[in-house]
């Protein structure tokens, strides 16, 4: 039963400022008073046949909203890393800044490595700070065999932040590879892969001997000739440095390019570069070893991080330069990466809750599995644009045959449905 009310008597009616509503009411009333038939503004018979559809929000299948921005022309590999890093808690900067910093300066093989690595061992927290005194760092907290990984970054120039982000990620990789390869080891959990993998330490020592960097009377006197040579070759005017693969640029860019090599030289000499007083490197106090068997060797940790930073750089000349100065170290690093950097290698998780496989099954320098890495699941393939899928098929040399088949199948499906 309809209840009739007088609109004008309703509280607040005079305050309604809704012209469309008022016009509709006027039209209805004029119809009623003029023709004896209320003009509702539509044909009721049509409405009965096709009642207005009220979408049922509860049952509507929704496309999962991407909570992270995707860069223009971004590869799926970069997008995967962005998504993985989006899962981490990011404090002190808008979410996604760290991911962008990583993506900005990294090569495809670096992105592939980080993507597979983060799949098994996600980063828990990314903390940004504006304290100009405090350095960026990687830290891990552990209790009862469970680990929480954190990277703390100092805000700064984007190019520099990108290099630093890869450096700190190198520490993360170094630590987790140590846990992964030597899980169940009774040695201290303060040890990194670079401490535990003998070939790395041996190569480090070989370089020291080859380059004449054995300790002299003073730290400052250690490796003088080699350090002078690096500076002459890398920090010289553009005409000369072009031969080394450096591009013309301002002094800061040239110095930043040389910083990884100088930092390794600093580690080998126990702080000889820092003692020259120009900045760069980590410093004498940092490299003073107290109980290396218990707390690891920070010289090896920094060397590994610098090698990872260079190996994963988008600038291929960076690794070439590194190879030229440290052939023994880069050889060992390349051997490691022939396994871990292989797109088919699956990483194990060091945290029991995040893994279905036992990390202790992972053996040193053995491919943990022969299965192809299954990154592109069906849902992801369906999400990608046709153009992106075609681009993957044409340009992505890391794609497994299984993924290629699935992409072709999806493209054929789209072709069929037009």
């Amino acid at each position: 039963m309809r209840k009739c009310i007088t609109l004008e008597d309703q509280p607040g009616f005079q305050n309604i400022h809704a012209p469309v509503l008022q016009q509709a009411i006027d039209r209805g009333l004029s119809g009623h008073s003029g023709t004896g038939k209320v003009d509702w503004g539509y044909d009721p018979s049509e409405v009965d046949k096709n009642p207005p559809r009220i979408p049922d929000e509860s049952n509507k299948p929704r496309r999962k909203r991407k909570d992270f921005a995707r860069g223009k022309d971004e590869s799926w590999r970069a997008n995967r890393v962005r998504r993985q890093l989006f899962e981490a808690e990011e404090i002190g900067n808008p979410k996604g800044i760290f991911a962008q910093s990583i993506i900005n300066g990294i090569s495809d093989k670096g992105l592939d490595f980080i993507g597979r690595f983060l799949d098994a061992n996600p980063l828990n927290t990314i903390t940004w700070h504006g304290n100009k005194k405090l350095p960026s760092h990687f830290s891990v907290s552990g209790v009862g065999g469970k680990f929480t990984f954190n990277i703390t970054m100092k805000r700064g120039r984007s190019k520099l932040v990108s290099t630093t982000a890869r450096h700190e990620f190198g520490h993360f990789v170094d630590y987790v590879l140590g846990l992964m390869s030597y899980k169940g080891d009774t040695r201290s959990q303060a040890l990194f892969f670079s401490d535990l993998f003998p070939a790395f330490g041996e190569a480090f020592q070989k370089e020291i001997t080859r380059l004449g960097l054995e300790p002299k009377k003073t730290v400052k006197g250690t490796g003088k000739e080699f350090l002078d040579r690096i500076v002459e070759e890398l920090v010289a005017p553009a005409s000369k440095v072009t031969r080394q693969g450096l591009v013309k640029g301002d002094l800061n860019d040239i110095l930043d390019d040389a910083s990884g090599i100088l930092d390794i030289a600093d580690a080998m000499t126990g702080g000889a570069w820092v003692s020259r007083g120009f900045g760069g490197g980590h410093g004498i106090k940092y490299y003073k070893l107290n109980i290396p068997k218990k707390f690891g060797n920070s010289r090896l940790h920094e060397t590994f991080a610098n090698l990872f930073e260079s190996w994963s750089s988008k600038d291929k000349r960076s690794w070439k330069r590194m190879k030229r100065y440290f052939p023994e170290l880069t050889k060992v690093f390349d051997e490691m990466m022939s396994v871990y950097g292989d797109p088919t290698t699956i990483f194990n998780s060091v945290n029991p809750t995040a893994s279905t496989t036992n990390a202790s099954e992972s053996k040193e320098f053995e491919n943990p599995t022969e299965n192809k890495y299954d990154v592109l699941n069906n849902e992801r393939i369906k999400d990608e644009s046709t153009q992106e899928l075609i681009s993957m098929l044409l340009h992505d040399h890391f794609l497994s045959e299984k993924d290629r088949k699935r992409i072709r199948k999806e493209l054929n499906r789209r072709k069929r449905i037009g």
Partner: protein
Amino acid sequence: MKYKEIEKILSNTPLAVAIRLHEDTFGYPPEFGGKTRIGDPILAEEVHKSIAKGEPFIVDAPQFIEHEDGSFTLTAY
């Protein structure tokens, strides 16, 4: 270009100047705790501020801490 010539350029960068002043003031160089950039002007400014306050620039950067509850924190810079 020989090292001596490059050294002149490097020793005039902001951080090199700040480190020298710190050494002249306190008798030892500043302790940065982690990786620094050659000539970093922002860090140089912090060293100058510290010198102006009469405090040596020392950043404590512990690499390994064992907590009372049995947990640990390991840091690499």
